[in-house]
């Protein structure tokens, strides 16, 4: 077991962890933060996306011990309030636009979108790499492709992100 400290949604947590434990399992099984989902456990679906030191990351691919000293924001903390009662504009837009069905990929979509909106720089579909491109639907689609949605809510996900970004 290894000792570590993690700041989760604003609260500092001192923990003793099995080095094999992923950040994802730590959140879900130890800290009761089950909003972050496990879909594939290999970084192939994006359901586990959290903000790790402010950047979107797959919590299933991060060993918890390797996150010692880091700051994590999960879907529960996305709105800023610990109880999730102040929704982030993305959360509101997802509800209004029906940007999910089963809801299982949704926390990952939301954290990914929040991280994506803070990112600068080009994507694989940006024509001119030297400029930071405007956030067109094509850019959103490419940048959000690390979050699979089997229900097929992509059309509404893109619309919701566009709305929240305005």
């Amino acid at each position, binding site marked *: 077991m290894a000792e570590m400290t993690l700041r989760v949604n604003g609260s500092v947590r001192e923990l003793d962890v*099995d080095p094999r434990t992923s950040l994802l399992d730590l959140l879900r099984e130890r800290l009761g933060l089950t909003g972050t989902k496990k879909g594939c456990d290999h*970084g192939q679906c994006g359901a586990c996306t959290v903000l790790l030191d402010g950047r979107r990351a*797959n919590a299933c691919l991060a060993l918890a011990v390797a996150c010692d000293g880091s700051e994590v924001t999960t879907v529960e903390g996305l709105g800023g309030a610990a109880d999730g009662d102040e929704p982030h504009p993305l959360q509101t837009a997802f509800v209004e636009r029906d940007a999910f069905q089963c809801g299982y990929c949704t926390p990952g979509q939301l954290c990914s979108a929040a991280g994506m909106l803070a990112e600068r720089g080009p994507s694989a579909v940006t024509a001119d790499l030297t400029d930071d491109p405007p956030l067109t639907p094509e850019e959103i689609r*490419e940048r959000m*492709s690390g979050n699979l949605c089997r229900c097929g809510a992509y059309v509404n996900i893109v619309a919701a992100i566009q709305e929240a970004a305005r």
Partner: protein
Amino acid sequence: MKLFEYARAADAREALERFRPGTMYLGGGTNLVDLMRLGVARPDFLVDVTRLPYDTIDADGDGLRIGAAVRNSDLAAHPAVRERYPMLARAVLSGASGQVRNMATTAGNLLQRTRCPYFQDVSRPCNKRRPASGCPAIPGDHENLAILGHSEQCVATHPSDMAVALAALGAQVHVTGPASDRVVPIPGLHRLPGAEPERDTVLTPGELITAITLPPPPPGRSHYRKVRERASFAFALVSVAAVLDVDEASDTVRDCRIALGGVAHVPWRAERAEAALRGAPATEEEFVRAAEAELAEARPLPRNAYKVPLARNLIVRTLQELIP
């Protein structure tokens, strides 16, 4: 996953000192943790090298120095990379997802392992994973495996996009090790499978990549193009990194660089095609001739023969688009 010890190294010396048999260096973890969970990698000891002071990009001078711990997304977003090595930025951006690129490091990207389905499934034989156990991909599923440089022991491909661009750019990999420091060029870092498919690279146990340096950008125009049936978040069926420098007065090729992804155990530098093109007219016919010269060596398997025309078309089209 086997129980292992974990330690975070502050600098290269500490990482090297901690290295012992059974140790693996941990970068972003996007492939290593994945492989550990599959049981493909079973280290006793992980030395975390993400906090080593190799997380910067140094754009002083004509070339570029990329720290081994620079995250893929930071590499692609760096102004010097976007302006001077756009092909590299595009290659990095075409790999994986935004999340994975935020985590994955430059060195880790180079050292990622094949996505051959048999390699990733410990319930099956695989010469790369368990030497001399056999290669079930050759008689089995190899639709996305190698057409060039493979052996009877292994037909795996190297999955990196970034490495293909680096191969075309002639990057140098800076390595520190228990004995000494050294520089390994790309191509040259990765090796063909031959009779030892378990060895992906020429690195020896304990050696640690510290940086990648790029020579000044080659003259001419460049592009990275990746083919995949899913529009994003998929490994390449075939990809190409190409640089073309055309003498506009004579419409002849002054120089060119071509590297292919998805076709071999290494990022494949298409030296035959390059040689065929130097001094030749910059025309579609010559591009076809050059591509076919390269692919004459191809030995496709029954189910990946499509990669030969695909690679040919991709080379030709990409070069066509680079004509000024």
